[in-house]
């Protein structure tokens, strides 16, 4: 038996800390407490995935969650996602406005071209706009050439900056997928925060060749796309899980004297459905009723965190 190549037993990055240079290892319970405005214990960050799924999107190297899983032309998949941009997001806007909760829209930039009116309405709602790539058919991954990836980011940024100007500060890589250099290109394009690495409950500094990005905690595990769509759980299983997370984070905030972030990673074509919007409203009411909650945007949270670093 000849076995595996010798270097299969070589570990060039076996060392103290991480096996890459993006951030040092950090232990959350040993991290300095962060105070939120008004002494709030929980910053409530509602991140809304405003995605465009082209009918002819590539299915390789993998199908993004919500992508065209049925044979072309899948009106089944396309129109269900598009429902979110026409109907679902407006339901979310109403539910959130009624409760004084701002959103952070993670926008497929192609929508600035397709549905400029939707961009106006996002701005009018007082939501923070963030760029989630060109569209769900442009996944950033290790097989994309640097020049091509840079061009995608430039095009997406120009589309959204053309509408939102300097308010555009955040980037979320579609489907939590990146190449080795995505964070560098994103920082070079002038963004301040990213959210694709789901490895913490609090912000941390993420190094790039063009300076530091704030990494914001956008869970992919506790997310409606994961639990309701991919895992086909009941709506109440998702909302119960959020409330369970709130209880733990709130208790940690009380115990440590530092704030925590409860992130709702929600999607208009899922939570904006008529049969789910009531559960979403009840969820917001339940969270707010627990007290000590600061409803905030990503940039609001980032600024509060940065001011105390």
């Amino acid at each position: 038996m000849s076995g595996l190549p010798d270097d299969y037993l070589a570990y060039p990055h076996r060392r103290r800390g991480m096996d890459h240079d993006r951030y040092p290892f950090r232990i959350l319970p040993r991290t300095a407490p962060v105070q939120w405005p008004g002494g709030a214990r929980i910053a409530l960050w509602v991140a809304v995935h405003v995605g465009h799924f082209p009918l002819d999107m590539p299915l390789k190297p993998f199908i993004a969650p919500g992508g065209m899983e049925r044979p072309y032309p899948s009106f089944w998949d396309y129109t269900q996602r598009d429902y979110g941009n026409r109907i679902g997001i407006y339901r979310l806007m109403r539910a959130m406005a009624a409760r004084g909760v701002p959103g952070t829209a993670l926008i497929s930039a192609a929508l600035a071209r397709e549905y400029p009116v939707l961009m106006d309405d996002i701005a009018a709602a007082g939501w923070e706009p963030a760029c989630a790539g060109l569209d769900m058919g442009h996944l950033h991954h290790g097989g994309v050439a640097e020049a091509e990836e840079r061009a995608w980011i430039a095009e997406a940024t120009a589309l959204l900056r053309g509408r939102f100007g300097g308010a555009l500060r955040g980037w979320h890589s579609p489907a939590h997928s990146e190449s080795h250099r995505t964070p560098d290109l994103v920082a070079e394009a002038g963004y301040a925060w990213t959210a694709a690495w789901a490895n913490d409950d609090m912000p941390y500094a993420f190094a790039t060749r063009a300076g530091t990005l704030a990494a914001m905690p956008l869970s992919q595990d506790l997310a409606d796309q994961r639990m309701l769509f991919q895992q086909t759980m009941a709506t109440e299983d998702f909302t119960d899980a959020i409330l369970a997370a709130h209880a733990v984070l709130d208790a940690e905030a009380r115990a440590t004297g530092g704030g925590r972030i409860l992130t709702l990673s929600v999607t208009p074509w899922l939570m904006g459905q008529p049969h789910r919007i009531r559960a979403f409203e009840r969820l917001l009411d339940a969270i707010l009723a627990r007290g000590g909650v600061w409803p905030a945007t990503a940039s609001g949270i980032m600024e509060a965190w940065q001011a105390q670093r």
Partner: protein
Amino acid sequence: MLKTPGHYAFMPWRRRPRITWPGGARIAFWVVPNIEHYEYDPPPNARRMPWPRPLPDIAGYSWRDYGNRVGFWRMAEVMARHGVRGSVSLNVAVCDHYPEIIERCCELGWELFSHGTYNTRYFYGMSEDQQRAVIRENREAILRASGQSMDGWLTPAISNDETTQHILAEEGILYTLDLLHDDQPTPLVTRSGQRLVSIPYSLEVNDVPLFVMRNTPPARYAAICKAQFDTLYEEGAESGTVMCLPIHPYLVGQPHRVAALEEVLRHVTGHDKVWLATGREIAKHYIAHHLAAHEAWIAEGTP
């Protein structure tokens, strides 16, 4: 290729020689936190790609990373609160990457055993010498980091090759978790005749299959684990059983799941005839008191 693993004799679930646990316990309950590092840029293996997405799979990587930064600490606190020690299925490179975690495990009196070097380095296709080299290096690293002898083994991602169990026996490992054939410890057959026992692990109440593959909500997870315990506790009145609760910090340490883990531990520790053991303790007790009787029963044809 093998038709069967060939490591164990048939042992029907009736009239087995009785297993007794210390203190008259019916069940040995042990918790196995899998403390892992999945590499950012691992080499490929011909039989399995380390990540489902093209490298870097930052979705998968950052999810595992959460376990070491956040989940481990939450999970360890819940276990300590209920007086439950862990037997750590350890990717041994964690000793180098995150010594703070090893230090905390040692403070808590947890056992460390090997789960290979990284969870992204599979045993599929390794030569015997390569397998032996990893096992020996892991033993030295665990000894250096904790002063403990490496007595147990779970191949990373259960990626064992045909000869792995033989080599474990030859290297003096006491117990392996690569086989899922039983609810009690059992003797294993190895080519050299050297001793190796199997201790029950689990893929049924393991949080990876439940949360990741079977889409289980937290409350349902707790109900499944409690039902597993209740049956094994009941059957343990006849002959001592083992329940293993394998957990992963990046899953049970999430804020929406940690209360479910706590509910399971509260349920288990609320029973009086439970031996809260480690893998090493179970293996040593079994070897000292029951292994010979099991082997004799097998030799007699399991009457």
